[in-house]
């Protein structure tokens, strides 16, 4: 394994393709270009989502003064739809996964490059349709991102277009998953056994199966909702003999596994980062690999815990609650292995590691509050309050979001061939960390006090915490702007990145930054595990 000879090759940015200009990107089947196109689109939608979130918080310091009731309903709906379907779900697999999966397993591209490009087009079309649904038709969707029936059937807002957009995103997600599974099985370099793959690949593998096996259920459910709105087929409409609870079941049969589509790749990223910044082999390689599969498996069987108050027999509630607790086991296995990896390591406290440690901290709070609301007795009290909102944002933003930022800091030099300013990265981390906890921890307290989620107006006793939370959102926004300002500055003015700035042992660090078009001049032959520090 000595790919260092291939330094002379030109970066993929300069490769001459069949098309010129913008077409060399939007018609490219190169996994690296597609990964970067995803990254651009995903971050654009992320910032739209953030802006909507900040607007919601602004309403909540003085309800009705800036924003109408109807607009508020649309804000939390579109905020949720964008951040979940357009940012968190495709966030890591479609951008970093596309860019790095083939490189990490020593391949030149994914198994189906053209299907990969089609996925991106489906993603962008879906995203544009969702944004369009805000402006045309009967008004922006106002159902909440869960589209619960029967309100979603009866509202005059423009639900159908948004639903169609989400269905397209679903297909994009399915095709990405299909591509990754086949890539991992078929295109590993010689000697790259399954258990020699970097663990990010294992997490993508588990994610891909979840994408493939859960997303179709969402597609059919939302398609039925569209038919319901146009033809009154009645499956989810009680007046016609249907059952709205069936919608909840079918929605969560997808949407709970989707939570693991969001978090598993982030876990994969921090698993890559810990060995590199502790200069130690990962502790418990197989345990981490299997825990990814374990989380994906148990993730299928717990959807009912979203519906403890919707009407369900005690037996099924107890079973769902029990399996929910079981998910904590593989998750705990991961956390202990990460910490054991750091033990006695020579720690290099750079921004990727700081973000990864933050991931563990915030995700632990998220996981432990998750156990609380997985408990039946507490759930009945906390269901539908801000406690859920707080828990959800700790998992998704504190977990998946900070994992995404960790990956961005870790792989930025490789993707763009430039170094960002390390000190600014640390300052932006600090501001975001403070802002995040102020914003979302106050939601836990609000929830305990009984503040219901999605309410436009509230009792005066909740006012103080709402103001604190809103101030947190501003701090967080400042941190985000600083972090991305740092990246944008680095794109133009950053120092040239060396081939291996962090001393990583995985394959992406053995090729130039940015990588050449075919990734490897000669396909590497692998004879050892991925984190070979000892």
């Amino acid at each position: 394994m000595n790919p260092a000879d291939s330094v002379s090759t030109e970066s993929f940015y300069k490769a001459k393709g069949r098309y010129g200009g913008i077409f060399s990107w939007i018609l490219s089947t190169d996994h690296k270009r597609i990964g970067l196109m995803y990254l651009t689109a995903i971050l654009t939608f992320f910032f739209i989502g953030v802006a909507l979130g900040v607007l919601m918080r602004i309403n909540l310091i003085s309800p009705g003064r800036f924003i109408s009731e109807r607009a508020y309903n649309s804000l939390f709906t579109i905020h949720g739809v964008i951040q979940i379907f357009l940012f968190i779900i495709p966030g890591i697999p479609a951008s970093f996964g596309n860019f790095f999966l083939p490189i990490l397993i020593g391949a030149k591209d994914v198994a189906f490059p053209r299907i990969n490009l089609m996925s991106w087009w489906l993603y962008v079309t879906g995203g544009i349709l969702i944004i369009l649904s805000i402006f045309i038709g009967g008004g922006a969707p106002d159902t909440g991102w869960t589209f619960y029936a029967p309100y979603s059937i009866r509202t005059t807002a423009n639900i159908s277009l948004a639903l169609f957009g989400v269905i397209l995103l679903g297909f994009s997600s399915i095709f990405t998953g299909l591509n990754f599974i086949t890539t991992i099985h078929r295109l590993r370099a010689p000697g790259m056994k399954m258990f020699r793959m970097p663990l990010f690949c294992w997490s993508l593998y588990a994610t891909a199966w979840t994408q493939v096996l859960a997303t179709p259920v969402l597609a059919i459910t939302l398609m039925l909702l569209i038919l319901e709105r146009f033809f009154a087929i009645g499956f989810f409409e009680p007046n016609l003999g249907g059952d709205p609870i069936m919608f909840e079941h079918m929605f969560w049969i997808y949407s709970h596994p989707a939570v693991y589509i969001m978090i598993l790749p982030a876990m994969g990223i921090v698993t890559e980062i810990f060995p590199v910044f502790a200069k130690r082999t990962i502790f418990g390689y197989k345990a981490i690999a299997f825990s990814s599969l374990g989380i994906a498996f148990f993730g299928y069987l717990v959807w009912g815990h979203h519906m403890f108050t919707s009407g369900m027999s005690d037996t099924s509630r107890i079973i769902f609650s029990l399996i929910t607790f079981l998910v904590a086991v593989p998750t705990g296995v991961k956390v202990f292995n990460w910490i054991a990896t750091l033990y006695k390591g020579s720690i290099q406290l750079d921004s990727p590691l700081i973000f990864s440690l933050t991931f563990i901290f915030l995700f632990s709070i998220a996981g432990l509050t998750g156990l609380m609301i997985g408990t039946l007795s507490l759930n009945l009290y906390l269901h539908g309050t801000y406690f859920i909102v707080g828990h959800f944002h700790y998992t998704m933003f504190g977990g998946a979001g900070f994992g995404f930022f960790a990956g961005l800091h870790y792989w930025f030099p490789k993707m763009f061939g430039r170094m960002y300013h390390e000190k600014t990265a640390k300052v932006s981390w600090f501001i975001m960390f403070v802002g995040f906890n102020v914003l979302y921890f106050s939601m836990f307290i609000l929830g305990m006090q009984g503040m219901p989620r999605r309410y436009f107006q509230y009792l005066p006793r909740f006012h103080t915490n709402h103001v604190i939370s809103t101030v947190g959102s501003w701090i967080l926004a400042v941190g985000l702007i600083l972090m991305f300002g740092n990246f944008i500055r680095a794109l133009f003015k950053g120092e040239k990145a060396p081939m291996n700035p962090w001393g990583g042992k995985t394959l992406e660090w053995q090729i130039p930054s940015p990588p050449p078009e075919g990734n490897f001049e000669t396909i590497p032959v692998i004879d050892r595990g991925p984190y070979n520090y000892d």
Partner: protein
Amino acid sequence: MSEPKEIAVRHRVDYTGAKMGMWIFLFTEVLFFGGLFLLYSVFRSKYTLAFHDSAKELDIFLGTANTVILLTSSMMMALSILFVRKGEKASSILCQGITIFLGLVFLCNKYIEWSAHIRHGIYPDSPLLLQMSRGKIIFFSLYYVMTGLHGLHVLIGVCVISGTLLFTARGKIYRDDFVKLENTGLYWHFVDIVWIYLFPLFYLIT
């Protein structure tokens, strides 16, 4: 763009990869229809009698005919792959042609069935259906959605097989490279199997 071309060449020979992709796609299709079968089972246990009565209104003769037609078309599809493997291009084209023809006949029958129901005033949200029992409303909604979605799959299949037929005629699908045809065959058999479940669930439960 020499690199991607090389990749394409390498992939064309990766039969296992192409078939693996197709099988995974078929898993997603199973789950896609699975959502509807789930709804069917819930509503059938809720409205057992209404389902039983409503099924009598479906034309069992046309349903049986369609089952025979689809099964035969599946056999033709399998034969066309067999002929390509043997290098008998003309026979393979003929078999694919018959498959397309049978697919179209299936759709015609479906059209006849649906238009008869619609003429009788039975379709989702029709004034007549809204006066009937809730179980009946749900039965016919399920009938239209499930056979409709299946019909859509048949239509897509017919289009794809037309494509493979062209490829076979032009020599792009031949003895050493027929994975496209094989994957199309897998898809067609899947469509067939879905019908094998739909037929008893709607026509034979009286």
